[in-house]
């Protein structure tokens, strides 16, 4: 490739000298005038005829987009995809979305301002620009102010440009050769970069995914799962027999389940009904009687239950004189242990229920054999 020149560069000592030279060089129309300075110089944009930076508009658009994205995302999640009522508010109550909308707006706007400025407007990062490898660069980032006449077309006359710069007061004039490759980003370069980024993202994504899956299973992390506790139905080294669940201590009594009365019915005759005879106790006794006893012994305790005929059973007629003479303890014993074909009811009746049903049986017996005296008690 022939050694064409890309630009001619000259240095100035003060910002004043730089500003004075700009209109002269622009009037000469030898090439695009560009300034290189160590810090931003006020008024240079107008002097060089630069267009206003479009960054403000870009940031506004992206900021609004950020707010809408955040609102839509939160609304969709909180009101549609996974509605949860929090604090009694409607699932679509948008007021709670405002903090995150603000944060996402700022995030979008910031990245647009920063990356938009660097990548889109300034086309950075870019390491191939001819000015970067010029001798003047050392001064430009320190304390010198440079003006460059940059080639606009093939007809660029570097000698005339150098002359014009000198006439404008520039020192250390330098002709920058055109680089072998395009000084600007090519589509090939961008494609390769994007491809590289894609592969890197893929590797990073898969790497992070597997890390997340495996990491909690590694040595120090899983210690937290190895807790010294007993699991139901699991072995444990804590007890000698290796069982996690242990039988209760011998003699343990569950609440409400006192040991069943054993021994003979005659021995139980001395037991005294501990419950008072009041409305609640009779109500409970009645409930137990109707669900457990009535089906055989009958609603009137006369041995004529609904099952009696069907199965040919002969349940005791509790209205018989024999049973009316029974002490409470003997009825209690029969309820608990069963008698003849009748099974014991201890397994599902608590102690108070057993005694309550005894009271109720007594009430049924008395009701069937009521005297005029009984009516007097009830009458006002």
């Amino acid at each position, binding site marked *: 490739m022939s050694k064409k020149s890309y630009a001619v560069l000259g240095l100035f000592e003060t*910002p*004043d000298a730089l*500003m004075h030279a700009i209109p002269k060089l622009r009037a000469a129309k030898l090439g695009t005038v*560009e*300034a*290189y*300075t*160590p*810090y*931003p*110089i*006020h*008024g*240079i944009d107008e*002097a*060089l005829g*630069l267009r206003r*930076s479009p*960054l*403000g508009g870009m*940031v506004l658009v992206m900021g609004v987009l950020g707010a809408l994205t955040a609102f839509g*995302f939160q609304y969709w*999640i*909180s009101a549609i995809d*996974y509605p949860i009522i*929090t604090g009694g*508010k409607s699932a679509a109550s948008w007021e*709670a979305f405002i*903090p*995150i909308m*603000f*944060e*996402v707006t*700022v*995030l979008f706007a*910031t*990245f647009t*301002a*920063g990356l938009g*400025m*660097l990548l889109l407007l*300034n086309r*950075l*990062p870019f*390491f*191939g*620009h001819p000015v*970067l490898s010029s001798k003047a*660069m*050392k001064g*430009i*980032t*320190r*304390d010198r102010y440079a003006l460059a006449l940059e080639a606009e077309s093939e007809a660029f006359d570097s000698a005339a440009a150098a002359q014009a710069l000198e006439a404008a007061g520039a020192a250390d004039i330098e002709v920058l050769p055109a680089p072998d490759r395009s000084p600007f980003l090519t589509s090939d370069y961008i494609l390769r970069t994007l491809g590289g980024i894609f592969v890197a993202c893929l590797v990073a994504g898969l790497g992070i995914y597997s890390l*997340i899956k495996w990491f*909690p299973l590694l040595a*120090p*992390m899983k*210690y*937290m799962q190895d807790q010294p506790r007993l699991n139901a139905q699991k072995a444990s080294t804590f007890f000698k027999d290796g069982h996690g669940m242990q039988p209760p201590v011998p003699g343990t009594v569950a609440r409400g389940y006192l040991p069943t009365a054993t021994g003979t019915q005659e021995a139980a005759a001395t037991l005294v009904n501990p419950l008072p005879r009041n409305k609640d106790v009779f109500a409970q006794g009645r409930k137990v009687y109707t669900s457990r006893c009535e089906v055989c012994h009958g609603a009137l305790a006369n041995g004529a239950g609904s099952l009696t005929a069907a199965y040919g059973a002969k349940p005791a007629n509790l209205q018989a004189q024999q049973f009316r003479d029974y002490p409470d303890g003997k009825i209690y014993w029969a309820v608990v242990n069963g008698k003849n074909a009748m099974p014991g009811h201890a397994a599902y009746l608590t102690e108070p229920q057993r005694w309550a049903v005894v009271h109720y049986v007594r009430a049924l017996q008395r009701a069937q054999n009521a005297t005029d005296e009984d009516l007097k008690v009830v009458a006002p």
Partner: protein
Amino acid sequence: MRTDTSVHAVPIPEGLLEPALTVGKVTPGSLDDQVLAFPETKPPKQWYLALAVTLSALGVGVACIGYTFTTGIGAWGNSSPVFWAFDIINFVFWVGIGHAGTLISAILFLFRKRWRNAIARFAEAMTIFAVMCAVIFPLIHVGRPWLAYWLFPYPNERALWTNFRSPLLWDVFAVNTYFSVSLMFWYLGLIPDIASMRDRTTSKLRKTIYTVLALGWRGAASHWQHYEKAYLLLAGLATGLVLSVHSVVSFDFATSVVPGWHMTIFPPYFVAGAIFAGFSMVVIVLVVVRETMQLKNLITMRHLDVMNKVILAMSCIMAYSYMMEGFTAWYSMNEYLHHGFMNIITGTYGWAGWVTISCNIFIPQLLWFKKCRSSYFWMILVAIGVTIGMWFERFVIIVISLHQDYLPSAWRIYKPTMIDFGILLGTFGLFFTLVLIFARVLPVIATTEVKAILPDAQPSHGGSHE
């Protein structure tokens, strides 16, 4: 730089002129030789000594966190009903420290306070380091930090989403945004300075690193135009963040019903406290930096004087906030609030309440005196006092409010363990390790920004005047 009197119809009296921002003759070249050459010199012995101390502290913290990971957070003193303790105290404390940097770099930039240019870089760096220290705490507070990504709303196999009505989730967004924006702001400011370092260094390795980091910055006027616009926009956006981040942190408390937390004054109160604590930390670090790095001509006593005035103003706001807390409790006629407030001044932890009030309200009043604002001894005393006081303020808010809430049968006295203190020490180690490394490898003063405000840095006519 003195204000150009020629543009005003009436000459400004001498006493009202803005004092010089630098001491002695400073030119763009001498500035580079002073600030940018520093990272290329060999660190002195004292630096290695300081690094050894901070790395030891960091090591203690890492060991304590490692112990926490392997045994669970039962290693800490947290216990019902004080489920939030050192972890959240330290989180709020460190996030607050960061606020000074953003205030200096963003709000003072918008107000055209040009003295900020010399100290903005360091303050921004401290913001980033402080937020790094802060995010450690929510991560370890969740107990299984390797599952901390559950905090983010992402489609997952459990078909669950995060609760967007929870201030804790707002916090996730606020802190992450804050860190990203601060980092972006800091890096954008660094690019031209790194370009200067790239062009002056002779070391091949440094040149390669700086070349990559400077992204090929070449100082073109067309680039500066977009750059300045971006910087202005970022300053405006970051200004909103300064006010929002600690407000959102305060929502973690204010939206709950714990007596002593449920107050509308919390957001501004937290923001003022954050700036208060942050400025104190910046003063401490700046005094050390200006003495040990020979930057007295750039970070002048005037800078410290102005910083101290801000601390004083914030102290007064804190005093008002504390009084409002008492007033709210009294005016509410609510026995739980009464009890909560009396706990601060007379309860088991009453001493912590008085440490807070003394360090944050009484001691900073010294700064009314010019003598104290211009004396290292007094300003460091105040700054350290404020740092301690602001830590205890969060202790007061969190532990005192939690340890006695509505249910007296649940009350309990909280006692931190050695592991709690070790982790706190570790974050101080991390913070100062990063500060020490930063001071040695990157320009501690934004040379580009200072160059732009030096005398004769701008054309004497035709340009818009700041």
